[in-house]
């Protein structure tokens, strides 16, 4: 597999060509999961005609918010149950003050878990084609794809025709 | 990139971290261990012998019934018995020395509360608590040993189990802190 890995780099203003290239690759029989677009600027999938990518970050965030809420509840109610202390003639379970704590902790849970979601998803293994070139962060758009060796020629030709700069894995500097 | 190994991959770094960690851990463990040791007493008083012979705690620590401090026996009290019970031992020699010099015996109290805690023996005795409940089994100790974990949670553990009509009073901060 490794040998059959390809990266087609396009210049940042060759957006149309990128879309075209993707379409062409598909036509050539590559499936969506064999391809991956890497870019220095976010482009929505629609622009490039790619399927929607998929992330669990919002769900993790929601779950985190839930945890935060529960922690807040536990602190508001549980700690008072452990050692009830009367202050300022207030009831043991004052609702207004617990709202403040609940809000803060829920938000804390939400925000931290959002980050954790990003982090976990980043470090968890992904199955798309691997590869990278520093030119990406120079605004280049790259199409990474796996293709059977026999198709190499054809694909390369097609991409070159669209103005892509083709880079083989071995040329990618190891980081 | 010039050095193939990152800082945290070098042995020196890892050993350094381990040493620092060990020092901290060792310090903490040692600190805990050494403060839990019974202190050096002027006389190795054998509680076990006295309790074994049937001496009542309150005979030597009479303040416990009536006030905050149980009190340490004066040497006249020790000597009152030991003049009669003439058993020579190096510890008794020391006692005799203190008595002849009319010097107070510099006992080191073991069960002491911090200064911001006002503990009173009397109500605890009045509530029917035994000395052993807090001070441990003195029949098994020579010099008194500190009991572990006697912190506020430990106090409250007991206080919160008391009768509900007393609960308000017993869980009140002012009962110990003023």
């Amino acid at each position, binding site marked *: 597999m490794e040998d059959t890995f390809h990266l087609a780099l396009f210049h940042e203003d060759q957006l149309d060509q990128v879309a075209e290239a993707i379409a062409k690759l598909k036509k050539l029989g590559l499936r969506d999961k064999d391809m991956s677009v890497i870019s220095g600027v976010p482009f929505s999938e629609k622009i490039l005609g790619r399927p929607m990518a998929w992330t669990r970050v919002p769900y993790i965030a929601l779950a985190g918010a839930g945890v935060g809420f529960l922690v807040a509840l536990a602190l508001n109610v549980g700690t008072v149950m452990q050692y009830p202390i009367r202050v300022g003639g207030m009831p043991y379970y004052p609702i207004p003050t617990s709202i403040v704590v609940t809000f803060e902790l829920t938000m804390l849970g939400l925000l931290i878990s959002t980050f954790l979601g990003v982090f976990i998803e980043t470090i968890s293994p992904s199955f798309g084609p691997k590869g990278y070139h520093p030119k990406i962060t120079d605004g280049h758009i790259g199409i990474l794809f796996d293709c059977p060796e026999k198709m190499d020629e054809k694909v390369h030709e097609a991409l070159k025709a669209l103005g892509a700069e083709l880079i083989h894995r071995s040329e990618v500097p190891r980081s | 990139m010039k050095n193939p190994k990152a800082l945290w991959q070098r042995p020196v770094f890892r050993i350094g971290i381990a040493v620092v960690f060990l020092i901290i851990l060792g310090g903490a463990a040692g600190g805990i261990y050494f*403060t839990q040791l019974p*202190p050096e007493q002027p006389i190795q008083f054998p509680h076990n012998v006295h309790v074994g012979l049937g001496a009542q705690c309150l005979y030597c620590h*009479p*303040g416990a019934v*009536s*006030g*905050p*401090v149980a*009190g*340490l*026996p*004066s*040497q*006249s*009290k020790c000597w009152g018995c030991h003049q009669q019970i003439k058993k020579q031992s190096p510890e008794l020699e020391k006692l005799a020395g*203190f*008595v002849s010099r*009319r*010097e*107070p*015996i*510099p*006992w*080191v*109290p*073991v069960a*002491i*509360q*911090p*200064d*911001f805690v006002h503990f009173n023996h009397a109500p605890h005795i009045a509530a029917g608590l035994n000395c052993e409940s807090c001070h441990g089994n003195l029949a098994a100790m020579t010099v008194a040993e500190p009991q572990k974990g006697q912190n506020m949670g430990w106090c409250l553990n007991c206080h919160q189990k008391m009768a509900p009509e007393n609960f308000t009073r017993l869980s009140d901060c002012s009962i110990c802190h003023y």
Partner: protein
Amino acid sequence: MSQKISRRDFLKITGVSSAALAALTGCGPASRFVVRKPYPDMPEYNQTGASTYFATGCRECPAGCGLIVRTQEGRAIKVEGNPDFPVNYGKVCSRGLTAVQGLYNPDRVQGPLKQASRGSSSFEKIDWETAIPIITSALLKNEPSGVAFLMGLAPDHLYDLVAEITQTLGSPPPLRYSALGMFEGRTTLLQAVNNIFHKDSLPFFDLANADYVLSFGANFLETWLSPVRYSRAYGSLRQGIPGRRGYLVSFEPRQSLTSANADEWIPIKPGSEGLVIAALTKLVAEIKGIEGASDHSELDVAQVANTADISLKKLQEIAHAFASADHPLAIPGGQLASHANGLAATQAILALNGMVENLGKKGGLFLIPSTSVASNFSEIQALVSRMSRGEIKALFIHGVNPVFDLPSALGFQEALKNVSLVISFASFPDETALQSDYILPDHTPLESWGYQHVLAGADRPTYSASQPVVVPLYDTHATADVLLTALKESGKVPYQDEVDFLQQKLLPLLQRGGGFYTAPEILTFWSKWLQYGGWWTPTEGLEKPNGSSTPPAPAANVAELQEGQFFFVTYPTLFGDGSGANRPWLQETPDPMTTVMWNSWVEIHPDTARKLGVKDDDVVKISSPAGEIEASVYLYPAIRPDTVAIPFGQGHTALGRWAEGRGCNPLQVLNVQFNEAGDLAFGDTIVSVTPTGRSRKLARFESREGVYGSQH
């Protein structure tokens, strides 16, 4: 005495330092293990962790209140009032409360000292074996007339002992002086009572039951005679009797705490008090229709009102109210006695009481049934002149600090130089002690035995008993013991030691009976005496004064002020005779009227200050022919604009870390002039005030804004 020794032995002090250390660590992490030393022998009444209470007598001022001192593990913890004691009934003043700070003052003299040369502050420690022969030879080898004792005002056992000793030796009787006595005009009051009622005792004013009270400069809520007693009475005057609230009118140029609590404060012109009393007497006589006040008949009341700066209407109103009150009472105070006509004015007050027929009646004037003796100021002056002539060979000073307490114009300190031997019994290195050859420190009151004959505040014959509540902290000796030991060889005194002396002195009480307890013999009596903290009768026992001599009308005594001159008022504060200045908590207790702490101030009326161009905290110089002092200004709205006032008590140059170098001593500007009774007429001092351009912030407890001005 064996009993004495054993009792003292009981109060072992061992273990104190560690216990105190434990107390000190306070909130912080307590050291895990603290060494505690239990008693070798436990005193039977002592229990670790439990308090023991001792009854004793307060000796902070001559009033002689009864105290209960809480002790624990041999330490005196807290001073409380003795609830049964018929002077203070369980109450104490700030002064008495800080007695423990005197006892535990780190600046105490810790043993007998010999000073290399006077004023050098270089001391050599000596022991009592060396010290006592010095006293022996001073007492016996000198001409009896060359031996003088100067003592405090307290009517205590030591005075009785010294009086006996001087009598035996043929020396002049001990002189007694206290700045407090000067401020309350005690000699003048005694003299006036003697002149009118022919008794040598102090009057007792039944303030509690009076309903219309005139006070002429009597600061009975602060230091006058028996402040705690009179404060209690004041409480009763206000709310003691349901449905009745006594009315108090105070005549004073500067509003004292007493005047502040009065319903009316009349800022009378200093020196015009006598005239006002005469005018009141005339008016009251007119209202009551009493003949025979002929002496006053020529008095022009309107003229008097004008001189004294009171409205005539007010004066008439007061006279009316006074004459028609059920229980009128007029009280003569120290400010009244402090003028050249002080004696006449005081007498006139006593006579005024007689005129409204309140003598010996509820809410009226009584006499204390015991004899009071006080040295008047001219006697002190005589002593000073004898000293400067070198006639005094040995001077013993106890319980008074004359270098500080006497007006410097009197020249005591200079005269001291001509005395060959000066021995101070002070517990603290005070100004006088530093001018003496030897300091042979007495115990502080809480460490010592004694009694005090209550001569001012009790409504019955009362003695207070002092006993040591703690073992003496340092190598100090009771002065009575020192004197007795010194004279033991000579056989001139029939007493073994101090306790023996006390017990023998108590024998008359035991034999006379009538106390609230009786005892078959002295030892039982002694134990009850100590237990109750004294002896007194169960029922009131005041004397009804009688005497109808009409005193002469007081002469006018109002000085004319030049431009830039002011009447000068000085008054005692919480520090009493000034010896309280080394108590940090007395220093930190705010002055009631000004809330100033830790320093001296000059009270100036805001209008006057504006004219002088000074504001709060500006330092001004107060000068009189006698001297000059400096202090920061406190704008005091309750003082006559032509008067300035400085409190007395600060300005120490010695007496320990908390007293030294704070404020100024107003006695340095007092002129030495006397009233008819021989008391110092300090109220007649005229001063001038000059701004120095400097400023020094006073430590005020109150805000610098808002407390007056915007709060009308």
